[in-house]
């Protein structure tokens, strides 16, 4: 019952994400990342791998903020939140939203990483590892931004608060991701401990959400 409801909601959330003109923010983000990470090396200024990976994740974070911030807020402002509240338990709504968000960010980051491999003329052998890092990173990023988006939307807090509140929570994940991506770009051995840290943080936030978000729905 819950599982099939989750699937139905996930399909709906993905449809909404791809329909509502949200791609524009992303496209813009990708263009910025690509322009900077490509233009600089080509103009003979040597750019370190650290700079490139920092840029990738920071721009990904901010361009995803735009969308993540709206996944819950749109439901409140368009008055569909009360419809869903009456039909499905809050944890299912939350799970489907953050999953849709993670899938969306993964799609974007996979595109970015494919382009990177070509621009940097990396050997294709790094591609699987890079994809793995991007998918894990998107998962942690999607979930963490998702839960902050829920808190901001539920409390009807000012929207400008979102990136300020979300960034410090995600920074540990971002630092790990930047470190790993740098290792991948340098073709040096990848620290799997950091990758586990990223995954662990994603799961920890996911479970916290399932456990504690119902308290924000009941009896208020």
């Amino acid at each position, binding site marked *: 019952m819950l599982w099939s409801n989750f699937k139905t909601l996930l399909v709906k959330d993905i449809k909404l994400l791809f329909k509502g003109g949200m791609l524009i923010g992303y496209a813009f983000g990708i263009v910025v990342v690509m322009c900077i990470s490509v233009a600089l090396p080509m103009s003979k200024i040597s750019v370190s791998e650290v700079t490139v990976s920092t840029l990738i994740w920071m721009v990904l974070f901010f361009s995803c903020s735009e969308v993540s911030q709206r996944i819950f807020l749109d439901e409140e402002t368009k008055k569909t939140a009360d419809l869903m509240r009456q039909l499905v338990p809050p944890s299912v709504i939350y799970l489907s939203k953050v999953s849709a968000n993670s899938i969306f960010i993964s799609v974007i980051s996979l595109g970015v990483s494919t382009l990177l491999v070509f621009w940097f003329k990396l050997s294709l052998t790094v591609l699987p590892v890079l994809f793995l890092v991007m998918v894990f990173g998107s998962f942690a990023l999607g979930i*963490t931004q998702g*839960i*902050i988006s829920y*808190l*901001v939307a*539920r*409390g*009807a*807090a*000012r929207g400008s*608060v979102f990136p*300020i*509140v979300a*960034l*410090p*929570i995600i*920074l*540990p994940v971002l*630092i790990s991701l930047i*470190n790993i991506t740098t290792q991948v770009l340098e073709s040096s051995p990848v*620290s799997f*401990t*950091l990758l586990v*840290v990223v995954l662990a*943080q994603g799961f*920890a*936030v996911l479970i*916290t959400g399932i456990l*504690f*978000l119902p*308290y*924000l729905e009941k*009896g*208020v």
Partner: protein
Amino acid sequence: MILSIMRIMTPIVIIPSLFYCILYSPVEKVIGITYRSIFFHIPSAWIAVVAFAVSLVGSILFLTKNDLKYDRFAHRSVEIGLLFSIIATLTGSVFAYYTWGSAWNWDPRETSIIILIIMYAAYLLLRNSISKPKLRPRIAAVYSIIAFLTVPFLVFILPRVTSSLHPESIGGGGLTGGMWIGLAGMLIGFTLIFILLLDLAVRIDKGMEEKL
């Protein structure tokens, strides 16, 4: 009862410890007396982590028991934790300036504490920006729980996976017996101060709410 004993104990512990640490604690062989800032630095950092942990526990209790008393603990504990994180950062910077040559080095522990400060400052920001008063403490509580999830990473993992200038990362604290005594006294003293401060802040909150 326990609190009254603590009120008497605090000056008894902290004043002799202060005198001992500043005037009589043994001089370090390599860096001389500048190391004495650790008598403030380590206890403040310790209290910061304790305060954030108290906020975590208060938040979980508030959500499950739905009693505003726990929210007051969670909220005020974050504020006190922030205060001590700033003290830890400043004392650390003084130490860094005299021993490593510059006040800020982007050492992993410095990065960690600055992230902690931003994160819990964001807690206060989020709390104040919520326009639904009934949901304010609940949302803040969930945020505090998520924020604490990153503490293990910042305190234990980050300094170990990246190279650090901090003593425990480059092998051995190098503290001798006399230094440990001073540090223990300061740790106990700071913990007592934290408990009393938290109690005071919570009682002020409670009084204000009753007055309204």
